[in-house]
């Protein structure tokens, strides 16, 4: 089991997973989001290569209306 800080909140996952796996498990549309892994932006094409480790911090960001 691993623990991730996902958008500021601790969340537990049964097994290790990649960024792509995480995005899929949250049913997010990849084209609409940006993922930051421990403070670094990870290119969408590399999501399946980045394996998440215990205590990693993930930020999932999208564009909203704003002035």
């Amino acid at each position, binding site marked *: 089991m691993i623990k991730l800080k*996902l*958008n*500021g909140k601790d969340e537990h996952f049964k097994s290790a997973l990649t960024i792509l796996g995480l995005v899929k498990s*949250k049913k*997010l*549309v990849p*084209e*609409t*989001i*940006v993922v*930051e892994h421990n403070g670094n*932006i990870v*290119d969408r094409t590399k999501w399946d290569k980045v394996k998440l480790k215990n205590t990693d911090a993930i*930020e*999932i*960001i*999208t*564009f*909203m*209306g*704003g*002035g």
Partner: protein
Amino acid sequence: MKNANDILVIGGKKFKSRLLLGTGKFPSPKFVTEAIKASGSELVTVALRRVDLTSKNYNILSYIPKGVTIMANTSGARNAKEAVRIAKIARAAGCGNFIKVEVINEMKYLMPDNEETIKATEILAKDKFVVLPYCMADLVVAKKLQDSGAAAIMPLGSPIGSNKGLQTKELIKMIIENAAVPVIVDAGIGRPSHAAEAMEMGADAVLVNTAIATAQDPVLISRAFSLAVQAGRFSYLARAREEQKYASASSPLTGFLLTEK
């Protein structure tokens, strides 16, 4: 006609429209698309937010028509460091290199932190962003922003979302008179007449959000703002005369009535 070639250039990019549109607070995203079309705006702002993992998300970018330049803002940033981080995320997300720097840590009037804004502007301009900082209408701040590499200066007319219009009019005039980069009045513009007033006094553009997004008919008022911005711009280019103390007759005073006494 003089105005046929009246193009606004920001960061090397040309814009025919001088109305910048914010995309926040609209009743639904489809109004964003319609408002952009009705306003003729070619430069619109968006914000970045954490995805809400508990509900359905949409991405505002898919509601912005093709050909329109997107400028992310750094709203939510409380200091220069956070603004820089947000700007980098936006660029990495394919949002282009236009960035509106907005640093706020005072939540009652949402006044910008000018010192942090100048710092962020300098860092981002060096990193090849086209930086449009939102700032207090202050000539010295504007000068420092310009020296830091700002592509335009965006002084506030009045507090964000207040609809109070150009409360800082005289202060914005000083910036317009002295700036070497475009001056865009941002925040506080509540009505098309405020937008016309800003343009008439020589602002290069205005940025409007709340006044359009929260109107009963956001699409119709987009059109009204578009016309107001054009009217104000034409008036500025036509060099409207200053106010005079006394009357000056518009009709010839031939005086023939006097001779018929």
